[in-house]
């Protein structure tokens, strides 16, 4: 029983990481239909930002908290720059975007290698994040790592913030208007180019925040982005493009599925099974968990 509960919690924490990684994509890929393979490198930029800040700010806790907004801005700015330089030329060719941003991703990885060195770098987690909380005591205690709780909290906060931004702010209304009907938005006086760039800034900024979170659980190195990028795309695709709630549900479901399967088999087998399950699921619901119903043909 403890095992099942424990694995469920582990799954939720894996899901929280997946959610944070995928959240930015739900804007850039989900809303704007841009397949940005360099998203992983924006996550990497967030992680390196944490590393750099920790060199100048001594307190591990403070530097981590400072890193959150700074990484948001650093990765966001990188994203906006990429949008301005390349992606805006490619809005009508989503699949070309994939290959072009793949090239960008290669270059950013090499850049990280040249700036920070090829080996991974280290960040210190504050002491209040390295321990764990006991949920159920006894001989087989059920514990949850503080770092995982922090990431879960961060993921929930990010989802809420993103939802509120899209629902309540004028910017959010503009983004939704552009997503729903670009031409109509344009004739209504919305600068679609500016909205695109802002949305890209937000989505990439969220990748930066995910990067800060990843420093608590994984390696910080030039290839850290490639390790997670496909998982993130799968979450969006299975959740349904343009559907935030789909992304949230699927991230947690995949996390729990992975952790439960892994406990009874091995990591490799669990990964293969999850991938096969995803392929099978898309046969059943080719547009993902939630779909936007439209009358359009395409």
């Amino acid at each position, binding site marked *: 029983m403890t095992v099942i509960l424990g694995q469920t919690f582990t799954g939720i924490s894996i899901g929280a990481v997946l959610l944070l990684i995928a959240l930015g994509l739900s804007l850039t890929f989900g809303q704007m239909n841009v397949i940005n393979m360099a998203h992983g490198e924006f996550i990497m930029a967030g992680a390196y930002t944490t590393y750099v800040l920790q060199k100048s700010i001594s307190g591990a806790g403070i530097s981590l908290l400072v890193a959150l907004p700074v990484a948001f801005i650093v990765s966001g700015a990188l994203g906006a720059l990429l949008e301005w330089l390349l992606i805006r030329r490619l809005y009508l060719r989503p699949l070309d975007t994939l290959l072009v941003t793949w090239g960008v991703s290669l270059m950013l990885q090499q850049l990280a290698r040249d700036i920070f060195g*090829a080996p991974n770098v280290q960040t210190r987690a504050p002491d209040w994040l*390295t321990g764990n909380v006991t949920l159920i005591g006894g001989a087989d205690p059920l514990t949850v790592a503080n770092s995982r709780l922090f990431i879960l909290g961060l993921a929930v906060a990010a989802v809420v913030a993103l939802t509120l931004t899209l629902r309540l702010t004028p910017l959010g209304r503009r983004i939704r208007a552009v997503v729903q009907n670009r031409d109509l938005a344009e004739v209504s006086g919305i600068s679609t180019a500016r909205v695109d760039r802002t949305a890209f800034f937000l989505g990439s900024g969220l990748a930066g925040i995910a990067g800060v979170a990843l420093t608590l659980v994984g*390696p910080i190195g030039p290839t850290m982005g490639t390790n997670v990028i496909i998982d993130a795309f799968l979450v969006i695709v299975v959740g349904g493009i343009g559907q935030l709630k789909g992304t949230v549900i699927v991230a947690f479901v995949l996390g729990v599925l*992975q952790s439960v399967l892994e406990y009874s088999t091995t*990591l490799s087998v669990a990964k293969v099974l999850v991938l096969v399950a995803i392929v099978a699921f898309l046969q059943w619901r080719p547009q993902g968990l939630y779909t936007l119903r439209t009358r359009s043909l395409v």
Partner: protein
Amino acid sequence: MSSGSSILRRRFLVGGAALAAVVALSACGAKTDAAGSSDKAAKADVSGDTVKVGLLNSLSGTMAISEVTVRDSLKLAIDEINASGGVLGKKIQPISEDGASDWPTFAEKAQKLIQEDRVAATFGCWTSASRKAVKPVFEKNKSLLFYPVQYEGLEQSPYIFYTGATTNQQIVPALDYLKSKGLKKLYLVGSDYVFPRTANKIIQAYAKANGMTILGEDYAPLGSTEFSTIANKVKASKADAVFNTLNGDSNVAFFKEYKSAGLTAKSMPVVSVSIAEEEVKSIGSQYLAGQLTAWNYYQTTAGAANEKFVKAYKAKYGADKPTSDPMEAAYTSVHLWKAMVEKAGSFDPEKVKAASDGITFEAPEGKVTVDGATQHIHKTARIGEIGTDGLIKEVWDSGKPVEPDPYLKGYSWASGLS
């Protein structure tokens, strides 16, 4: 009615011309080294006053995190040798190639170094997969590879010198150490490739013969960074110790998760065979302090040769750069090659091989001796404990260099392994 397709036809013709250009370009690439030799054993080019050697390491891709430091260390050794007059009066000219963490690329670059650059010897490779990929290339071309990383044994190529530890110089001593400390229930965690799988087979056989029990065995694909479930399994097993054969990135995630699960070096120590000073630096002593590693060299290893090596390395690459076992083995391999060549009086691989037996070198890890029969090295086994300062402190050593035994022929419990 064929106006549409005639455009395509014209393109095809244009394409033919472009193909010609491509072929011409690759031909240009080849011309730099003249003589399109169809001679099977490409002879090393030692005609000038320099001798070329190949450095074959992953400078991009996932393995770059480890292999770049090996290349740096190789370059240091070459600089030292050139500063003291070179080999047989010739300066060494290193040709660096990127294996790109991709095994077929390793094979391609190895072939390029041997056949196009006509190097006298090649130094490098890290993963067993890359070594397995290049092994036939070196054997077919009768050219030498010096492989500087500890590995799973069970191999003895006539054209490879293994300057890292084989299993009886690292894994077996580590098991002896655990046994001597009364840690008898083990959990095995490794990356999913040849070295961990073979190492764990050896550990299983050892455990069976020595009254130890293996409570679980888990593998993660190379590059995996999600270890919470494995940490849960390890914790639930209530093992005495964990034997860790994870490689690269995975270690970082594993140790972060290990600490988060509330496991410590006191409650359940981890013995790692792929965590050297460089990895400690990237994981953080916060997560590693007190954990054990098994190697043949640490930055703190005593001796004048090591002081000189560490000083030279830091002077060349920066005071914050640590030295580690694979870097030391790489550094040593160049010096061993030099000694072999000088004893043979020739760069010819066959003569070098013939001269190799008994060659010694005062390496940073202490005196090492080449075993001509296996082309492995006599090395001292060492267990170290990771300190809060990120350095590894030796807590045990084998006292004298251990004779290499890649097929574990001298261990009765290992008889069924190969």
